[in-house]
């Protein structure tokens, strides 16, 4: 270790220059980082529902459909219809928009006085303006599944203008132009935006504004805490600089390797700021504590002491992050785990190489060190917090233990109350326009979560089309399906318009000839593929409730098993199905990552402390604080979601450090004198102070996330802060008490009592 320390100081300039060059290079890469907020693209390739959903979204453009929702008292007035025409025209002129569908340009096929009429539902050059015409339009529109629940709400108070973004177009740019252009029309009715392109863009915007707003705040908060704790500029600048460099390297590497920022990974900078600065603090603190003849020796001695603990502390934290690779459903969670672990490694690496090199090059002046040392001895924390705490533990270990046990038991009750949420709507705060738009989709258009039933079979075969018709009828019997759409409805309309009974013609020839008229209708690309060898039924699912989703999945799978045949194979997918799997995976992923993290931590800590039993003791406080965390979530009603599912393992990775410090300090001192009281006092007064400062700075750093616009991040910050406080408390109360009781049971009990 001595050698390593000497090498670091010998090559100090090489290290400093390398760090600067790497930072410049990777910092330059950051400009290439892109944001991906598309949930569909984050679905894994090993879930058949997700794979089919991705395929259908691609083939039928489902992923590119955006919506402008217009809400008013009554859509069937000339003014509102004019507005629809205006929005439709405006959208169709936007570059990157492939097609627009609304009441003002959708196809209507009917038998008119002249025979069959094929045309637009509303003639934009002759908008209905008499009460009779408007009423007639209303009754025609609300009669058809093709319009009702799709383009117009059941009650006629809201309408949707659908647009498809061209393949390869810049979705964000298109979505922003849509918003800008529609707003410039100054329409009096309420306008909302929904659908994947709009949703993805508004999430990106939130991510962006979070990054811009929250990073400076958390920099400031952590800097302030560091200054209050150390009262030295160096104590602030060094940790903040290394954290900043680690952030730049991590994001730079993400950009360089082509990964994108997601709605989870955008909190990497804040996590690294909170976690990464700790390692430098340890190093700087140790250098300040060492007394040696010259700077070289001081730094060497400090490094020899601190190298292994910092490496191991970062290792346990990395384990916490890496545990997300296992069992997580969304790829963005895996990526988050990997890159945060990499960032943690950089933070530790910089703290152990760059920081000593820098201190050696710019040594602190002696007076400052002296002041620092004097201040270390006496402080508010030691006199008014740690000293009384230490006395309490020693006098009432059993009470303390009982309190913890009570707290844990109460929390276990809360665990059973934890709810889960995979609904994207819940990611937005109340009052957020996107959330309101989603709510309108649910209340007026039968939901926003699409369901696709794919029929692989000849779309000109009456048997296949009848099967589709029958499937639609079956689906509509479910309480959560308001309406369905497919090419069958259009064919039935045309058959009727040609003077026959409404329905699917019995002869194949008739259907083939109907296609003569339908060929090339853009609207149909949503329902059938180009060679008519497959088609889909499009529907929406109303209930946000997972139980109904599961019931519906079962209901449909029974049907499909009974009806899928050689003539047409039927498959079903959609967001509700993915939700069910995602929901299951939340618990599974939580369990997997936590188990892996706990086992890894016990092993690592066992190795550090050279005793498996001690490793086990050290994990007790953090496990207790995780139980309390889950209990809190249950009682307060914070659901397990893609953000909060990360908390336990992150908390474990960071929180375990406190126990490690306490355990190693205690064992070290106890071995020397075999005196519990002295060992406890030493541990509390020296390590305890460092732990409290760290708990405060890490929690405050994470609490900044409470100001995030994204609900999962908001709770993520709050929950990490809570678990930090409890794991710190656990390390300073529960762990010492366990140690006292264990030791007392042995030989110590006699000497003291008697």
């Amino acid at each position, binding site marked *: 270790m001595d050698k390593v320390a000497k090498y670091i100081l010998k090559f100090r300039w090489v290290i400093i220059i390398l760090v600067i060059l790497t930072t410049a290079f990777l910092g330059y890469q950051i400009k290439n980082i892109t944001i991906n907020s598309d949930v569909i693209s984050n679905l894994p390739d090993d879930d058949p529902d997700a794979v089919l959903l991705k395929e259908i979204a691609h083939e039928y453009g489902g992923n590119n459909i955006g919506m402008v929702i217009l809400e008013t008292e009554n859509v069937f007035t000339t003014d509102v219809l004019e507005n629809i025409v205006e929005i439709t025209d405006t959208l169709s002129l936007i570059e990157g928009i492939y097609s627009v569908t609304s009441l003002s340009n959708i196809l209507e096929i009917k038998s008119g006085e002249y025979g069959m009429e094929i045309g*637009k539902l509303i003639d934009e050059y002759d908008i209905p303006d008499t009460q009779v015409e408007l009423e007639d339009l209303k009754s025609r529109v609300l009669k058809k599944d093709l319009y009702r629940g799709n383009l117009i709400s059941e009650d006629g108070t809201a309408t949707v203008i659908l647009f498809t973004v061209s393949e390869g177009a810049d979705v964000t740019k298109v979505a922003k132009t849509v918003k800008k252009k529609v707003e410039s029309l100054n329409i009096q009715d309420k306008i909302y935006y929904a659908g994947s392109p709009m949703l993805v863009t508004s999430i990106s915007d939130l991510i962006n504004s979070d990054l811009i707003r929250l990073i400076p705040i958390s920099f400031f908060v952590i800097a302030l805490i560091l200054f209050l704790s150390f009262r030295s500029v160096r104590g602030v600048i060094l940790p903040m600089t290394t954290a900043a460099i680690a952030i730049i390297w991590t994001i730079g590497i993400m950009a360089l390797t082509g990964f994108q920022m997601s709605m989870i990974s955008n909190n990497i900078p804040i996590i690294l700021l909170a976690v990464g600065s700790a390692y430098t603090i340890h190093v700087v603190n140790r250098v300040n504590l060492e007394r040696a003849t010259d700077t070289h020796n001081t730094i060497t001695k400090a490094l020899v002491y601190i190298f292994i603990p910092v490496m191991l502390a970062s290792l346990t934290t990395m384990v916490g992050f890496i545990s997300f690779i296992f069992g997580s459903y969304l790829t963005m969670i895996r990526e988050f785990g990997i890159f945060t672990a990499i960032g943690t490694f950089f933070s530790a690496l910089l703290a152990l190489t760059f920081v000593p090199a820098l201190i050696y090059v710019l040594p602190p002046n002696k007076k400052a060190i002296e002041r620092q040392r004097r201040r270390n001895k006496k402080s508010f924390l030691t006199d008014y917090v740690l000293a009384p705490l230490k006395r309490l533990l020693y006098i009432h270990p059993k009470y303390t233990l009982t309190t913890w046990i009570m707290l844990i038991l109460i929390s276990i009750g809360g665990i059973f109350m934890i709810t889960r949420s995979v609904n994207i709507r819940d990611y937005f705060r109340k009052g957020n326009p996107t959330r309101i738009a989603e709510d309108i989709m649910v209340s007026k258009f039968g939901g926003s979560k699409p369901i696709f039933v794919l029929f692989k079979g000849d779309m000109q075969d009456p048997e296949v089309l009848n099967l589709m018709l029958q499937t639609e009828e079956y689906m509509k019997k479910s309480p959560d399906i308001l309406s369905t759409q497919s090419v069958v409805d259009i064919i039935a309309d045309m058959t009727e318009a040609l003077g026959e009974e409404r329905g699917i013609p019995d002869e194949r020839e008739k259907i083939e000839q109907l296609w003569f008229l339908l060929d090339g209708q853009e609207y149909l690309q949503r329902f059938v593929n180009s060679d008519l060898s497959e088609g889909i039924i499009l529907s929406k699912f109303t209930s946000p409730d997972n139980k109904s989703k599961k019931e519906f999945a079962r209901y449909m799978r029974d049907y499909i098993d009974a009806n899928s045949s050689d003539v047409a194979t039927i498959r079903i997918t959609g967001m509700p199905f993915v939700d069910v799997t995602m929901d299951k995976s939340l618990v599974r992923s939580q369990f997997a990552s936590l188990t892996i993290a706990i086992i890894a931590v016990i092993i690592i800590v066992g190795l550090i402390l050279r005793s498996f039993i001690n490793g086990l003791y050290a994990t007790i406080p953090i496990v207790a604080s995780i139980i309390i965390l889950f209990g809190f979530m249950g009682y307060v009603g914070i659901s397990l979601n893609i953000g909060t599912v990360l908390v336990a393992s992150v908390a474990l990775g960071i929180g375990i450090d406190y126990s490690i410090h306490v355990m190693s300090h205690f064992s070290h001192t106890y071995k020397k004198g075999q005196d519990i009281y002295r060992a406890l006092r030493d541990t509390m007064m020296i390590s305890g102070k460092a732990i409290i400062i760290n708990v405060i700075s890490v929690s405050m750093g994470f609490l900044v996330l409470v100001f995030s616009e994204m609900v999962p991040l908001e709770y993520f910050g709050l929950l990490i802060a809570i678990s930090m406080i409890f794991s710190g408390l656990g390390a300073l109360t529960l762990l010492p008490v366990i140690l006292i009781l264990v030791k007392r049971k042995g030989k110590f009990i006699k000497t003291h009592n008697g």
Partner: protein
Amino acid sequence: MKFLRIFIYIIVSTGISSYAISQDAKEIMKKLDDTIFAASDKQARVKIILEKKGETQKVREAEMIQKGIDKKRYRYTYPESQAGIATLSLPDGIMWLYMPAFGKPKKISLLAKSQAFTGTDFSYEDMTVNSYANEYKPTLIENTNNAYVVKLVPRSDKSNYSKLIMYVNRTNFHPEKIEYYDKKDRLYKEAVYNYKKAGKYWYAEEVTMTDLRKNHSTMILMTEVIFDQKLPDEEFTVEKLVPEEK
């Protein structure tokens, strides 16, 4: 005085010349109309090829007869499944459709001009031009060695286009190319013509319409063209849509 005279001369002559230019444009379009709508009747075999990103997607074949400029009948012969389908377009936008599987011909009204013509890149608006001179306001914008470049602004406010730019062959007065601009004045479709002379008439042996946004194109090939057969009016009746054998 001399100055004033020059001034007046300039004013008048520019007025005249701009009048002359617009007159020229109108003349060119009239000549074009006379060239491409010259025959009293026409019969041809038509092959329609739909392509996406350069790959053939669909082929259709039909026999077409036309009388004057606004009576037209198509009888489809290929693909098998659509053989026998026939359409009859009559003046005033009236259209009849016969589908053998359904028996009786049906009158259909197409309420939207911008709709694609049975899956091709031509819209009904593109297919129903009867006179470029009358339906558009022409302006000559360039006079190159090979072509007159004419800007055509639709007179109807129901048009889907802000303008057309037509390249007219200087010697024979037929279109070489037409560019279609959307309402925001962006180029979005392009038709390229290959005209051929048969007897005294010019006809578009090949025309390719490309939708530049969708990367989709439609090629219409005309073969076995016969002109001036004195086709009787009875050929353009609803009864004639149904093949005689039936």
